């Protein structure tokens, strides 16, 4: 035994470890896999000026056509803007702004003449805009009840406490509750074209299709389903304090009334920044021959109502710089 093993071992010149227990003894040996030995094949890029600068050039080159495209597009956008805040004496709405009081039952109307130098050929979007209006204020954003707006009858009767102090009025639940709804923009804007032949043509403004489809059809729903009698459903609720009409009288069209009124939906989608605009109406192109809004003189009639109204003047505030400004804007994408 010894002799045979001797000759065998002598040849390879060194002693190898073997024996019956050999396999069991080696059980602690780590597996020789690429992962465990950290030898996974790898791509090892080295960032140097030589590799990165060309990459930047290429990215730059890609951006050039995109930039040109965007520039051309934005030049094709026609915008016309009127500020009708009325804080200036020369403004037509000065009187309305000055004399407005929240409990007045009389509407204050002001008319603003303006002139379009260029015709607006295709569909025109009419926006109202507000400046320094912090629709993104944390407490303001919270002050709503989404399940009430989703048509939940329970929430209609018992609005969420997040709506406080705009949840109840005269011991009746407010529908829609909360500060957002309460402060809804409810100026009425009308556009009249002063035809050179002397007639004043009122331009038809489309008030549907201005909200997100998902909002109108999924997120916002009238309580009691789509065919319910709204005034009956909203029986026992109060209108928001600042509103002139209850929610079920926002529009004559039953498809655009109650919580699914698109003006309301648009307002409820709170703006991200304090200076924002919201889509108000769409002026649709009627035929291919005439422009939607021909060049000429127009009058904007504003039923001035909102936003300065507030019953919360218990605290005295100072300063004048951060006035909320209201604008009106045309916007057309060609």
């Amino acid at each position, binding site marked *: 035994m010894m002799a045979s093993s001797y000759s065998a071992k*002598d040849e390879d010149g060194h002693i190898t470890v073997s024996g019956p227990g050999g396999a069991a003894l080696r059980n602690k040996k780590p597996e020789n896999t690429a992962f465990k030995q950290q030898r996974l094949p790898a791509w090892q890029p080295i960032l140097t*000026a030589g590799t990165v600068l060309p990459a930047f050039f290429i990215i730059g080159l890609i951006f050039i056509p995109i930039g040109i495209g965007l520039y051309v597009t934005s030049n094709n956008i026609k915008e016309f803007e009127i500020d009708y805040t009325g804080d200036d004496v020369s403004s037509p709405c000065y009187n309305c702004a000055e004399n407005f009081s929240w409990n007045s039952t009389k509407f204050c109307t002001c008319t603003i003449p303006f002139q379009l130098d260029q015709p607006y050929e295709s569909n025109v979007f009419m926006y109202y805009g507000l400046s320094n209006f912090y629709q993104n204020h944390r407490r303001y954003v919270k002050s709503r009840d*989404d399940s009430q707006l989703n048509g939940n009858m329970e929430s209609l009767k018992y609005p969420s406490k997040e709506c406080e102090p705009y949840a109840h009025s005269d011991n009746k639940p407010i529908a829609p509750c909360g500060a957002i709804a309460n402060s809804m923009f409810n100026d009425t804007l009308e556009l009249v074209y002063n035809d050179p032949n002397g007639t004043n043509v009122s331009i038809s403004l489309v008030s549907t299709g201005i909200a997100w489809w998902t909002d109108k059809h999924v997120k916002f729903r009238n309580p009691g389903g789509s065919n319910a009698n709204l005034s009956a459903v909203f029986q026992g609720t109060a209108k928001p304090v600042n509103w002139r009409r209850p929610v079920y009288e926002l529009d004559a069209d039953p498809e655009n009334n109650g919580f699914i009124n698109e003006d309301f939906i648009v307002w409820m989608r709170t703006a991200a920044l304090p200076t924002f605009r919201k889509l108000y109406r769409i002026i649709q192109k009627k035929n291919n021959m005439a422009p939607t809004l021909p060049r000429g003189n127009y009058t904007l009639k504003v039923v001035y109502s909102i936003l300065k109204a507030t019953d919360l003047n218990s605290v005295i505030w100072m300063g004048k710089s951060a006035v909320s400004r209201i604008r009106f804007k045309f916007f057309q994408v060609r």
Partner: protein
Amino acid sequence: MTWKSPVALVREALQGQRAREKDLRSLMSNLPYEGLEKGKQPNRYFPSNAIKTTKYSLLLFIPMNLYEQFHRLANIYFVGLAILNFIPVVNAFQPEVALIPICIILSLTALKDAWEDFRRYQSDKKLNNTPCFIYSRKEKQFVERRWKDVRVGDFVKVVCNETIPADLLLLYTSDPNGVCLIETANLDGETNLKQRTAVSGVCNSFEPESFNGIVVCEKPNNNLNHFKCYEKPDNQKVGAGIESLLLRGCTVRNTDHAVGFVVYAHETKSMLNNSGPRYKRSKLERRLNIDVFFCFILLFAMCLIGALHFIWLYALPGVPPYLVPPANGHLDSPNLSSFYMFFTMIILLQILIPISLYVSIELVKIGQIFLITNDIDLYDEETDSRIQCKALNITEDLGQIEYIFSDKTGTLTENKMVFRRCSIMGTEYPHKENIRLAVLNEPESEEEVIYNQDLQPLPTGWSLESEEANSEDTHRHGSRRKSKVLGTTQSDVAFSSPLETEVIPDRKLLQQISRTGSSSRCQKIDPYLEFFLALTICNTVVVSMATTQRRRPLTSDNLRYEAESPDEAALVYATKAYGFTLLARTPDSVTVRLPSGEVLVFEVLDTLTFDSNRKRMSVLVRHPITKEYVLYTKGADYAIMELLGTPYAQRHLDCYAKEGLRTLCIAKKVVSEAVYKHWLVERQRALTAIDNREVLIMDTAVQLETNLTLLATGIEDRLQENVPDTIMALRQAGIKVWVLTGDKPETAVNIGYACRLLEDEDLVLVIDGRTLTMALSPDLRGDFVDLAKHCRSVLCCRVTPLQKSRVVKVIREKLKVMTLAVDGANDVNMIQAADIGIGISGQEGMQAVMASDFAISRFKHLKKLLLVHGHWCYTRLANMIIYFFYKNVQAYVNLLFWYQFFCGFSGSTMIDYWLLIFFNLFFTSLPPIMFGIMDRDISAEMLLGVPELYKTGQGEGDYRFTTFWVSILDAFYQSLVCFFIPYFVYQDSDIDMFTFGTPLNTTALFTILLHLSIEIKSWTVVHWVVMLGSVLFYFIVTLAYSATCVTCNPPSNPYWVLQNQMADPMFYLICILSTVVALLPYTFHVLRNSIALSPLIEAKHLDRLDPSMREEWMKEWRSYRGGGQVQRSTLS
């Protein structure tokens, strides 16, 4: 159950308390009281043997676990924030939603704890129910019971290969000599057998029922190597020490059965030794905590800016409709609402304090340790051991080491001793054949060659070679063949290399012995005979038979030698080669077979065991023929020298030392009967003493060990393989290597040359123990450190373990550097004094390994551990931490912060809170963890080939004070880009809050991931999967969430938001543009890479070349850089 008055109960409890707290415990046998109720039991105050290591009970799990978890500051921070969110005026999110992160963290940790506790419960149950034999008076025999039934005062029988259930005082063994062998591997990892002897005075035919003594023992402690007690059978004290204690957890070997008296149950030494894993805080983590503190300042500043709310309020012209009063209808005053605003901002910006960073760091370290322990290069075939990482949280310190303190024996050397030379009566016997054998067996090993080369220029002046002239070729050839045979017969032994046992006798010495053996019979004391007898007798080697299953070198007589230290085994094997065979050893006798075949039995009168103060051991025997009392002493040369009666020429010893041999001296003394009798009385007194027992015993030993006569020997301890190479690499890596050894200066210097620690042109400091004591005195300490700083290496010789640890401490404190201590034996002090302690699991004790942070099996593993894993772990973790700060500041915190300027500092968020949580929890958590575990900036081959690269991690390394602020600034810049590009795009548009938040969120994700992509140095398939998976996961989750959440999370309104955005080309343009602009500053990073090439970048370029080219480049590059002279300032 009988009724007891409360007073009695209290008294009982107090008595128990007192009995447990007393310094001395008196224990009685339980047998006379068997069957009596508990109150009558004499040992009732001591806990039973059932163990319970579980932390929690089923009922109290939740409160106890929560209590435990709230000890962590991070959890308190989280809960504080969640509570803050429940205050209506302050809250930023839905209160319930804010609880989610803390709930997830708490419940995950609780689950982990519960699982661990359940495992502990299971193992406890298994242990407690292990069978054992306890003596029962009723049945008059040992009956099978469970471990948990063992009580103090019971008699327990243990049989061969069984584990001992409690600490037993050994009373009886099946061995006629009262010896029981145990293996303590479970306790200290040492695999050699240890001999325990039954308490003397108890007769051989032991009957438990007849035991009527009282055992007085000390209070339980955790010292495994120390125990004292005495027994009073009949008013006569019999002392016993650790040599009679069977420790719980050890295994009985080679002994059929043994009976012991239970001294400690439950409070056993092994249980008391169970302290949890040690917690060390790494340098990087200390730096990290400073930066977290800066984060707090930053958070505070940002919240103060948020509290500018009141200025904004004052600037308002009236009460605008968007200011919503609280439910009572009255607005708070601006100052008060600003005050509230401050806390809202804290909730909002809480992510700035990177709690998730701590969790991630722990995960990364687990991953890093997994990879380190799985490295096949750090695995040792011979001992079948991987590297063990005992400290889990200092992996990155491995990449910052500047000083290594190393022991010599067992660290640089194998600690496998080979008997090399001896000097008897002034004659030197060089054993040249053995040296040749060593070279022959490992022709490929480099250090042997270097060893020889370096030997040549040594200015020895007086060489040993000259004495040995008669080297005959024929003889040499014969010995070679013989060695081969010996080598192969033991080849199936896993534990030891053949060298351990092989000694080829020196011809001259062999002749000398045979001459004396034949001419003069044992009547006259022959020095040669005496020398070998001393070697054979004076040790604690245990001879074991082939009955056990353990694998150990077998000698031809079926004898195995189990020695506590390898040099003892080496000597016994050497004497065996000369024909002096140790046949058996019992506590009372040693049996030796002489070359003539004659068998002598020496009566052992006493064994004065080795201790580190005396540095020697002695055996007192009675010579069977001359009937003389002879004391044989063996020890370190200096420990013996001072005791010699006659001065002896130091010449040979010095020579041995110069060759790097460890020298042992053997001495003898004949003691007269009167002296012995007198000494015996004192010894007995010392043995039974409880106080100062060690001191007394040592004193008695010292008393006897005087006026010795010298016999000498030299033993070689070979260098481990690749030691010089490793030391070279470490030195090139800018690490200063110090060797601290107990050896003589000559030995140390020689080893220093052999392992290339010393080279001719070096400035080297060699200092010995006495000088070191002076140098470390407070007034000289500074100068010493200054001097040492300028030396390339430092050798400290003749230093004690305590001095070693002091040296480490002084360097660590004075120079503020990262230190690492390596030790292969028992220098626990030094290992614990350093930042990182590394133990080498070698031949001798495992205490160093037990106390270490990392345990390796070979010194050469240090090279890869430091240069590769250290570098990787450090760069990975440092980069991950910096990235984490960047990520937390950039994402959300700053985006949310900038948004506050546009929402009247009201604490609004433009991103849904669920998505906020998901963003940190799922979308961006995995990539940095993967980055921290798997990134590989430079290949292992490159790091090993160019050790200079290690310098990048030393000192401040990658993670500097400026790095943090640069990354914070970068985060600020990126967040500005990510916020303001969408801001200007959507300014004055009809965008709503959450639609505005979507591109911000997406851009943040892209920038964060792309930023990481730039940081990632090597992309493996895992990287791709994780990175692309994160992006995909983000879109899938967000799309699914915005498709389903109609009114689920008021007031946020995520419904159909991402879908709408993804239909808008503007969204993509914003994402691309913001991402590109945000990452632009990285061009500077890149430009720096191209203009001033850092070594790391150069190495990366080299890495791409094919191996042969790389070799060439490496050489060229190193010569260009001047081989290790790279200034740290030039490194990045």
